[in-house]
């Protein structure tokens, strides 16, 4: 894999296809709940809550390598990423290397996030990590 942190995304997509914002927030919640994870994504409070610019680089690398695909859509960044056959094999390898507790947490977070709509997802993240919502454009709306 071209990007050293892409394994986390593959491990999540193994559980469920997710769009980009769901991937971003799931990765954030995993760190939040599992505690410090070595060599993990660095998040900062951005315009829509916690954001790691590395996630975009990792997704772009996975697409270039043919490990994930997105269905054609006029708004490609709104649609879910799916694992390709090669991606599924890489995802299996990625989860084998994970600590069992961390793997359990990752799977639980992915399932939880995949069931949430966009609005509910942001609300969950902002409730859990309000300090990462400080720059968010939606913090006022989500409080209502």
């Amino acid at each position, binding site marked *: 894999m071209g990007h050293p942190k892409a394994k986390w995304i593959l491990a999540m997509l193994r559980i469920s296809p997710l769009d980009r*914002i769901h991937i971003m927030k799931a990765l954030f919640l995993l760190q939040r709940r599992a505690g410090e994870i070595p060599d993990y994504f660095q998040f900062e409070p951005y315009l*829509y809550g916690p954001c790691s*610019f590395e996630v975009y680089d990792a997704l772009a690398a996975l697409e270039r390598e043919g490990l994930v695909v997105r269905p054609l859509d006029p708004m490609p960044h709104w649609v879910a990423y799916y694992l390709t056959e090669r991606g599924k094999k890489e995802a299996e390898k990625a989860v084998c290397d994970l600590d069992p507790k961390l793997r359990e947490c990752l799977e639980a977070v992915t399932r939880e996030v995949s069931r949430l709509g966009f*609005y509910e997802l942001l609300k969950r993240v902002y409730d859990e990590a309000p300090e990462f919502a400080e720059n968010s*454009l*939606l913090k006022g709306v989500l409080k209502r």
Partner: protein
Amino acid sequence: MTLILVLPTRDGIVMASDGQVTAGMVRTTGQKILRLNDRCLWAASGELALIQRVEERLKTLSPDASLQQLRDQICGIVKQCVTELVLLDFRTDFLPRQPSVLLELHPGDFVFAECLQSPAVLHVLVNGTPEWITNRPFASGSGEMFAYALLQKYQGFDLNMEQGALLAYKVLEEAIAVGAYGLGPPIDVWKISNSGVKQLNGSEKAALEDASRALREGEIQLLMGEIRATKENAR
């Protein structure tokens, strides 16, 4: 077909454009925002032949001069290029000798942006007339009416550069989505501050895409929430 957007903010200027270049029946992509020098950007809508000719001449300008100092030279270049094209054009001899008629042969609209002590946005019309754009957004090209309509509700708000970049991105995205005027991706976004110019990279633009989606969802939720609240109050 083009949409160029210039958005002055509290700490600089955001400049954004669509990325579709249309030549006859053929559609391709291209860079529409260009560097005049290390501190100043420019872009244009209109006829490609005119824009290319102006671009060639702009390269001869001093890289150290400010936009204020270059204003009349830029206007001279635009006027000269239009004049040359009109004289070269086969159709010219068959048209009435009226400036408005002749200028319609080679449409063009030029905008320059620089931020030294304060933001400076210069609009140069195809006839060579300059005007400074102060304290308001500026849009040029076939999608300009979409942009002004989408920006109208933000008039008078003191945006920072991040908010400005998001707003510019969202306006471009929505104009591309609805415009039947040959607008298309990729969206290009630049920030101009007193430390220079910076083009947003892929991951920075991806983050803006997601923030733009959040803003749209927020608008919808706000409206639907109000509708739900109104219904509940009515019961």
